């Protein structure tokens, strides 16, 4: 069995927007048959958690020079460009 890909979902306080993103992302990846394991965090916590992650999805700017791919997007909140960003995330997680 393939281990689920680990996704760090970050926002400013890890309480509001990252929760919306995490739920939407889980639903969309499930629909595409991609198993993911989500961890919510504050953007400032990304560097200390990134070693175990495959991808970072954040609604707020992320620290520079991360060792894993990071996507900063508001699409899961605003709907703008959502289809494109979902495909981009799916492509990274399938790789």
């Amino acid at each position: 069995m393939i281990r689920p890909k680990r996704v760090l979902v970050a926002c400013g306080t890890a309480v509001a927007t990252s929760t919306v993103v995490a739920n939407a992302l889980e639903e969309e990846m499930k629909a595409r048959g991609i198993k993911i394991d989500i961890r919510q965090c504050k953007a400032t916590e990304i560097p200390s958690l990134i070693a175990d992650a495959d991808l970072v999805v954040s609604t707020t700017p992320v620290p520079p020079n991360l060792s894993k791919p990071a996507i900063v997007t508001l699409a899961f909140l605003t709907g703008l460009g959502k289809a494109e960003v979902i495909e981009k995330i799916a492509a990274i997680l399938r790789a």
Partner: protein
Amino acid sequence: MMSTSLFGRYLDPRAICPRVTASDSAEVITLLAERLRMIGSVKESYARAVIDREATMPTGLPLADDVAVAVPHTDPEHVVTPALAMATLATPVAFKSMEDPDRDLAVTVVFALALRDKNEQIEMLQTIAATLQDAPIMRRIAEAATVAEILAALETKKT
């Protein structure tokens, strides 16, 4: 999945402020924080905490049709009971973009969130996100002149 009853449960009409005239984001946040305080939802520290957070981690969101909103909020320690406060602005007020804190957005609708527990309030958050993604409803909210018109616009949200 998305029903207006979720707004109903968290959105007290006394915390809805139509056609607010404000010179900056701090003034809007202060007003909404006062309303949340009046209904017993937040502590006195909430307003300052939200304004400070907005300065470093802003909450402006650009939507379709050149509409922009802001969803100011802060840590649960400043909140007593979860609730939502709303303002529509008579003239747009600048909030910085969540995605790009150097970018000013001309915001016309503000949802101030008073959150206690992200798992308990997830439905409220999802209802807000679904509303933001519904351009006709956002247009009606932005144009609403009264509390009744704002509530009516929210009630048109499809299930």
